[in-house]
């Protein structure tokens, strides 16, 4: 059974911007799925269509086989949504927010109260349940949106960049919480622009760029495509001309004392260091070129472009 099936989804905004150019996506029941892509790729637009906050131009969305257009109530009842931006009333308390959301999903007050207690407690908000929500910290606000999304115990939980701007500690505990509910059977779809997040949480991933899915596979097979890793080397003197090192590719940067080295799988760093010191170049420090997602993109787009030619 597919928790979510998106077929040939197109979205052109009122200003004429073509944000989604024929998206196809399938998320199996029980999966932990990442929709990965840089800012502006169309992640929130896709999520918006699924939650009906964005009106699609064409295409089809089904949630557990319920068509969002013709079986709206059944389809929406299956979904819990944690949006990218805070969207609860700053004047209401966490308890009111969660109880009302339950009401909108048809959960009777008595049952909603039990669940509200359960989820607000699990997310560390029970003590704050009666405070105005504007007084909550940023991390608490994010957790409140998770509690709110769970009040009707949806089969499919969708989180739009849930950990953007969240500190490391909270990110870890949120990850653990999501893993737990996924293990208990909730299908999770999250969007992120951190490859690390997708890597540590998800089983399957789709990569979206400029409104198109450019890759859709398991995380494992995606990562295995990353044959290369780029390191940034700070060296002890200005390099005028790059030394030729057999088997390695070096690049100069803006700064003469900084080099970039591309290492493919199977090569080792010791070898690089030896070759460099033979040329009289000593390395003072070294770091991984941090944005792996960007690198992955460059390679995937390279590949796509080459295929296109």
């Amino acid at each position, binding site marked *: 059974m597919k928790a979510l099936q998106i077929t040939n989804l197109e979205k052109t905004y009122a200003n004429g911007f073509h944000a989604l150019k024929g998206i196809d996506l399938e998320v199996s029941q029980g999966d932990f799925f990442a929709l990965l892509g840089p800012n502006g790729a169309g992640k929130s637009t896709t999520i918006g269509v699924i939650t009906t906050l964005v009106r699609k131009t064409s295409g089809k969305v089904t949630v557990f086989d319920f068509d969002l257009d013709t079986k709206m109530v059944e389809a*929406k009842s299956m979904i819990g949504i944690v949006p990218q931006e805070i969207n609860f009333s700053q004047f209401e308390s966490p308890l009111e927010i969660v109880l009302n959301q339950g009401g909108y999903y048809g959960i009777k007050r008595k049952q909603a109260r039990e669940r509200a207690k359960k989820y607000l407690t699990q997310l560390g908000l029970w003590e704050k349940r009666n405070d105005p929500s504007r007084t909550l910290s940023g991390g608490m606000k994010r957790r409140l949106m998770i509690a709110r999304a769970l009040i009707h115990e949806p089969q499919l939980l969708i989180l739009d960049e849930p950990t953007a701007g969240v500190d490391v500690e909270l990110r870890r505990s949120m990850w653990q919480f999501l893993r737990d509910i996924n293990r208990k059977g909730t299908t999770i779809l999250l969007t992120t622009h951190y490859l690390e997040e997708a890597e540590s949480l998800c089983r399957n991933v789709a990569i979206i760029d400029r409104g198109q899915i450019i890759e859709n596979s398991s995380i494992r097979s995606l990562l295995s495509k990353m044959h290369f890793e780029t390191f940034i080397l700070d060296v002890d003197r200005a390099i005028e001309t790059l030394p030729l090192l057999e088997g390695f590719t070096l690049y100069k940067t803006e700064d003469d004392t900084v080099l970039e080295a591309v290492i493919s799988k199977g090569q080792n760093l010791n070898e690089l260091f030896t070759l460099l010191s033979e040329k009289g170049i000593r390395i003072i420090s070294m770091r991984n070129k941090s944005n792996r997602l960007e690198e992955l993109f460059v390679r995937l787009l390279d590949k796509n472009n080459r295929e296109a030619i």
Partner: protein
Amino acid sequence: MSHSNLYLTAFSTIVIKEIDRFTRIWLQTIIPPAISMALYFLIFGNLIGTRIGQMQGFTYVQFIAPGLIMMSIINNSYANVVSSFFGAKFQRHIEEMLVAPIPNIIILAGYIVGGIARGLLVGIVVTIVALFFTKLDIHSFAITIGVVVLSCILFSLGGFINAVFARKFDDISIIPTFILTPLIYLGGVFYSIDLLPDFWQNASKLNPILYIVNAFRYGIIGISDINIVSAFLIIILFIIILFSVCLYLLNTGKGIRS
């Protein structure tokens, strides 16, 4: 499959939330109409009214009381929906309802009933204030209640449309200031249109609020410038039109879905 239980729960959640909202801020919602009503009665009723003398066989204060009460009801049902719905849009928590499995008509009905609740509550409060200044016998209970509820529905719908189009807080006071208030003041609250020249009598008949004020006045003191049945029909016609507009706006996602 029937979803009536879900709809009922969602509907009552919206209504309770709406009532909770305006009762929580009663200093801004319930007290101001009571104060302005007391001032109107004091100045127009007691101070100036005694010099005006009788109007269609009633003291001036008795004549204007229904119109003033209705003015509060209209303003408050309108204000409730426009500020609540615009606030929800502005703070984006309208999304809480939009993502939920609630048909648009239920959302609309929830806000309308919220507007009716505030209109009724304010109506009762200002009627109590009025009773300090004059005696009011209810001529027809059914007509009084009927016209109050229909007016609340009509102006809640109006407030809803205003909120859908509003982009900033200023926009929610434009219609009340430039359209609603003039129509109310020229809608026969303070005078009988019999006093007007023919041209202005006819022009007044294009003003929907004239029908409401007169129907309400008929309900309370039993006199009206216009036919009661046609007054009701006109109010209902306006309700049908505005209701269709609201549903259309919701269904096309105007101002709330991109």
